[in-house]
């Protein structure tokens, strides 16, 4: 009899616990088990196309090289702008993503300043137009004609050579960048970053 009572007590206790758990305000389960975060800096070799590792290594190499160039160190925080980096490959490589990363790394160094590039010019002019539209206090509106012209511009190109033989595909990328003095037209700095990727047939 005691055994039956103790079993009944245990069942009631368990049921109550289950009910209480059910009523409790639980944190929703946000994990499916199929999604995981990875290291954004990890080496990616999923396919032989231009990837995150290529972008990161090019940006790192070029920003280091630029920051060490004597011409940028000779002037106190020179003003630089980014011009077009032409894509001469058949791959959809967003060269702006590369130059954006280079610019971010250089800005973090505090050694240079950047002027808005042509792609951001529309937003810049729109903002100035709005501030001078009469809607804002004149004393607090940013004045027209105060933008600064960049001392230097960065421009360049990315090219690739693709070769296939039997089961092997070989891709060679070369990114060339130049720093040009806007006033004199002198190329003050230039560097290249090369990448070679080889893969077997199942990857292409």
């Amino acid at each position, binding site marked *: 009899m005691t055994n039956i009572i103790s079993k009944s007590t245990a069942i009631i206790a368990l049921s109550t616990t289950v009910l209480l758990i059910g009523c409790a305000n639980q944190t929703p389960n946000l994990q499916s088990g199929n999604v995981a975060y990875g290291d954004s800096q990890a080496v990616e070799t999923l396919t032989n196309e231009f990837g995150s590792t290529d972008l990161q290594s090019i940006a790192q190499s070029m920003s280091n090289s630029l920051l060490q160039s004597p011409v940028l160190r000779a002037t106190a925080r020179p003003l630089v702008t980014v011009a077009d980096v*032409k894509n001469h490959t058949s791959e*959809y490589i967003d060269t702006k993503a590369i130059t954006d990363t280079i610019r971010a790394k250089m800005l973090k160094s505090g050694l240079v300043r950047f002027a808005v590039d042509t792609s951001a*010019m529309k937003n810049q002019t729109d903002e100035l137009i709005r501030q001078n539209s009469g809607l804002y206090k004149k004393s607090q509106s940013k004045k027209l004609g*105060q*933008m600064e*012209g960049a001392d230097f511009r960065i421009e360049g190109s990315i090219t690739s050579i693709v070769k296939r033989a039997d089961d092997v595909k070989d891709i060679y990328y070369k990114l060339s960048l130049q720093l040009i003095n806007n006033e004199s037209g002198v190329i003050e700095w230039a560097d290249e970053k090369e990448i070679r990727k080889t893969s077997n047939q*199942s990857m292409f």
Partner: protein
Amino acid sequence: MLLLSRTATIPLTIAFLTLALPGCSAMRSYDGELRQTVDLVAQGNIDQALQLQEQNNTNHDNDLLYFLEKGELLRLKNQYNDSVATWLSADTLVNEWENEAKIRGGAILDNIGAILLNDKTRRYDGHDYEKVMLSTQLALNHLLSGHWDLARTEIKKTHEREAIIAQYRAQEIDAVEKESRQKGVSTSFKELNGYPVATLDSLEVSELKNGYQSAFSHYLAGFVYEALNEPSLAAPGYRQAIELRPNTQLLEDGLAGLDRRNSDLNANTTDVLLVIESGAAPALSSVTIPIPVFYNNLGVIPISFPLLHSDPIRTALPHSVSIDAGIPQNVVGITSLDAMAKRALRDDIPSIMLRGVLRAAVKTASQRALMRSDNGYVKLAGIALNVMNVITESADERSWRTLPSLISIARFTLPVGKHTFSVMNSNGITSSESINIDGSHALVAVRTLGDQTYWSQPIYSGQMPVRVAQPSQKIETLDGDKSTRITPQASLNTQTRKNKTKKKVKK
């Protein structure tokens, strides 16, 4: 009670499934259904075509083809939003295939129905060129609705989709070659005696790089990236279009003029891409050919193959286009979906042959086991199975039929405003439409099928491409006012330029 030996149980199960399943997709004639739909579109009866589409798909669990065909019909009615919503349902299904393809690349027998009955019982994942065209057509809809950023998203999706297809097909080719070698099955389409091999072996088909990449999709990518001021992405778009369809002046001009065009455009002109879609995609029918197979001593077995039928009568090719009754300009056909469908089928033949042989092996083994039984009922099931095997052996006829057969383009720089576009086809029939042109870039699309012409009317709202900032123009100064006013399309430059402009105005 009928007692069955263990050896008869498995063949009987197969016989049961074979006899029970024909009521479903295994016996559906997609060609028959869509022939009527395409006929209605060619007669200008889009509403009836849409009704028929619904009647043929009363099943609530609509498949990929339902959404593909319906989206196209809605687009022809200029119901871009409804068309986009329908195609996005199709896109979800393609996306599921993509996720699976990444995991099970090279899976050649992914459905038990394909072994027991025929390829029609496989889930319809769409031909590779259809998957790519889905994102291209979605991009066109977004452009016609004035949503260029959404079009960019679809175009980017196209590149990713092509990469997944390329990898999946490479793995499939490896798997089919390996399996064929093991089973001693020849999978060359040129050895199909009795099949019209010439339809798959023409120069137009052989010259294609593959069955899913189109010059049009990449040229459109170039145009959109150019409009959105992303020349580094526009260049590979034009370059890939040239690689996919070499020696085409219009495509080469796209790349050569990339740097020049933006500076040539002023605030009152628009870079217009005219897209002319003609005809309907080819139909698929089934042809059964006896194939000698040494695997499992099968002997000569009948295997069904899909056969493509082009529709040249209703594909009156666009010949020329004129704007505002000006001098007619030739249009350039850059993508033949007819040829792409043939190339896709040609590339798929080895896989179809291998599936056919494996299917025949399973069916023959079951049939032989039943016929060897002493039980009269089981023997009867064996005979019935034999009959049903002959009836159900049929190739997959499913394909996106309302797609055009040919895509042609022309490009103009036009003043902003209303213009009359006139397209003349190779039969001498001219169709004209007044279309409003606005913005820095615009897209005009027209579909011809039979004698019917369906014009699009672009909508200029949402996210239109902005004119590229041109520092050398559009700076206005107001005399008597110390401030400077800039027109919306204009940009600013340094103080020096502003002063120069001021001097000009004072003169």
